[in-house]
């Protein structure tokens, strides 16, 4: 069955890349000024989730694969990074590297299983695999069970930058996130990215043109998982904590929500969505379970009335690519 995800990128011409440049400039300017106005920790959290959502969007937005288990890579990377920094006493750059590599390995294993089926089966398989590894996380010693890994030392990046200084930490998170955004942008605009979009639009046709969709899907899956792992590893250092929340299916749902709100298959959508959802959770934290109810309601409203998401809708109105 041909995919009918209304991603605005399908309709909008490529030549309007200046809109991407303008939007990037606005985003970077905002992110540089923001820590002087808003809490740096809030921004660090939002950036980690923005990166997580962008990684997720690489799969749903450009290959049309809905992974309902992205918490697996985010959470396990977070555990391994925290473990490396705390128990092995490694410097932050190595901790992040180990966490990200863990996610890549998990991505290879889970991805090669999940791409054996399509559509909703793909979603169910990724969810089930993530749940399995959640149950493993509950049991094994490494994760610290219910306590998680607490008081993870931030350390000194490359032995020089003291990450305990909040502004330094923010700068590092910002550089990592912007670097990853740029990488994702390059991936989706490369010949490789074009093949991914071709698979999303018509897999049979891509096969007839001589491509092997499974190889491309797996590569996209591993890239997505790896970047999700990068987000999780950085998050472990920012909060100095890795916990069960990060591997639970609710986390997988949250990243879907962020991307959906911002706009599936848009460049800036996941970033906008992540900032909005993180802000909402911050402000509504005292309402307890109502946050979950509101999140669910946003899902319903988005799917029914607002499938392009905020950025997708905006791009559509302005007739540009965002």
């Amino acid at each position, binding site marked *: 069955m041909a995919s009918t995800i209304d991603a605005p990128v399908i309709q909008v011409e490529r030549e309007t890349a200046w809109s991407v440049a303008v939007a990037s400039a606005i985003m970077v300017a905002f992110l540089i000024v923001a820590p002087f106005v808003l809490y740096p920790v809030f921004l660090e959290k939002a950036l980690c989730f923005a990166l997580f959502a962008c990684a997720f969007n690489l799969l749903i937005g450009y290959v049309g694969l809905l992974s309902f288990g992205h918490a697996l890579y985010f959470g396990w990377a977070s555990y391994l990074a925290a473990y490396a920094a705390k128990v092995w006493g490694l410097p932050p750059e190595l901790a992040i590297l180990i966490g990200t590599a863990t996610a890549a390995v998990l991505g290879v294993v889970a991805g090669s299983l999940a791409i054996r*089926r399509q559509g909703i089966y793909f979603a169910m*398989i990724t969810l*089930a695999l993530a749940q*399995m590894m959640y149950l493993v996380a509950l049991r094994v010693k490494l994760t610290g069970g219910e306590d998680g890994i607490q008081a993870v030392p931030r350390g000194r990046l490359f032995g020089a930058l003291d990450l305990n200084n909040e502004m330094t930490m923010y700068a590092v998170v910002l550089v990592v996130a912007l670097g990853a955004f740029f990488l994702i942008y390059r991936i989706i605009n490369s010949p490789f990215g074009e093949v991914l979009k071709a698979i999303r639009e018509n897999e049979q046709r891509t096969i007839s043109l001589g491509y092997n969709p499974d190889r491309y899907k797996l590569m996209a899956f591993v890239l997505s998982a790896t970047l999700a792992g990068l987000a999780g590893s950085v998050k472990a250092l920012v909060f100095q904590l890795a916990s069960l929340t990060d591997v639970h299916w609710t986390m997988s749902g949250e990243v879907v929500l962020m991307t959906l709100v911002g706009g599936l298959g848009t460049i800036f959508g996941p970033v906008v969505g992540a900032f909005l959802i993180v802000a909402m959770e911050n402000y509504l934290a005292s309402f307890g*379970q109502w946050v979950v109810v509101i999140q669910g309601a946003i899902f319903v409203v988005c*799917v029914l009335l607002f499938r392009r998401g905020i950025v997708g809708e905006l791009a559509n109105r302005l007739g540009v690519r965002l």
Partner: protein
Amino acid sequence: MFEIFGIPSQALFGQLLLGLINGSFYALLSLGLAVIFGMLNIINFAHGAQYMMGAFTAYLLLQYLGVNYWAALVVAPIVIGILGIVIERLFLQRLRNLDPLYGLLLTFGLALVIEGLFRNYYGASGQPYGVPESLQGGRNLGFMFLPNYRAWVIVFSLVVCFGTWFLIERTRLGSYLRAATENPTLVRAFGINVPRMVTLTYGFGVGLAALAGVMAAPIYNVSPQMGSDLIIVVFAVVVIGGMGSIMGAILTGFTLGIVEGLTKVFFPEASNTVIFAIMVVVLLVRPAGMFGRSV
């Protein structure tokens, strides 16, 4: 009392019984998912929440209206089934021509709303629901003790499963349903109201989930999150069995329940992951699932 493989028969058969009970719920829920998927082409993520609502309906009926288990067994599926019909009319109908993934996202959102609301009012802890009087106690079979209520759950879920199978595979209504799954346009041309059939099918599937919920109420505590963890296991069951066949869903559900029960005896650490592990093996060996059409 005797031993099998060095395990007391009481423990072995006890776990087997528990496995059969779990299997009954896997079968009932994956059956409902398969029926809904057949007609609507969506995965009903709210299935777990609807199962939970069935259990809560039984609990609330008893608590506030004094309505007993047997009446709840009839009332709860109808009430929740009607709620399902409303959901289909209000929401799912609008997604008919879209990618099935949107149905998954929408029902996931609904599940969050429902669970969040129940957790708001009832907290995370469970509410007890007693075994109905006529099914209290049990009998000693010599090799194990069989509680009456558990025997009832297994027998009744078998009856419901095979009743559903009969309805879909052997009756006139079922043949309309199967025809509408294959080619809705043609079936409509024969003067059958397919959209109404779709709505009723969703209501029926949801009702099955609620029925399972009522049956589960005396065994597990009635709690807001009782459905969400279960539904993920049921997804794995569905991936293993494939959704192409009603009988496949029933057999897979019961078999996996028994396998899980046996794992609890011989290798307890793996008991809650064994179904996922089987899913991995099935994906490696038979990617289309045991009974599935290749999707």
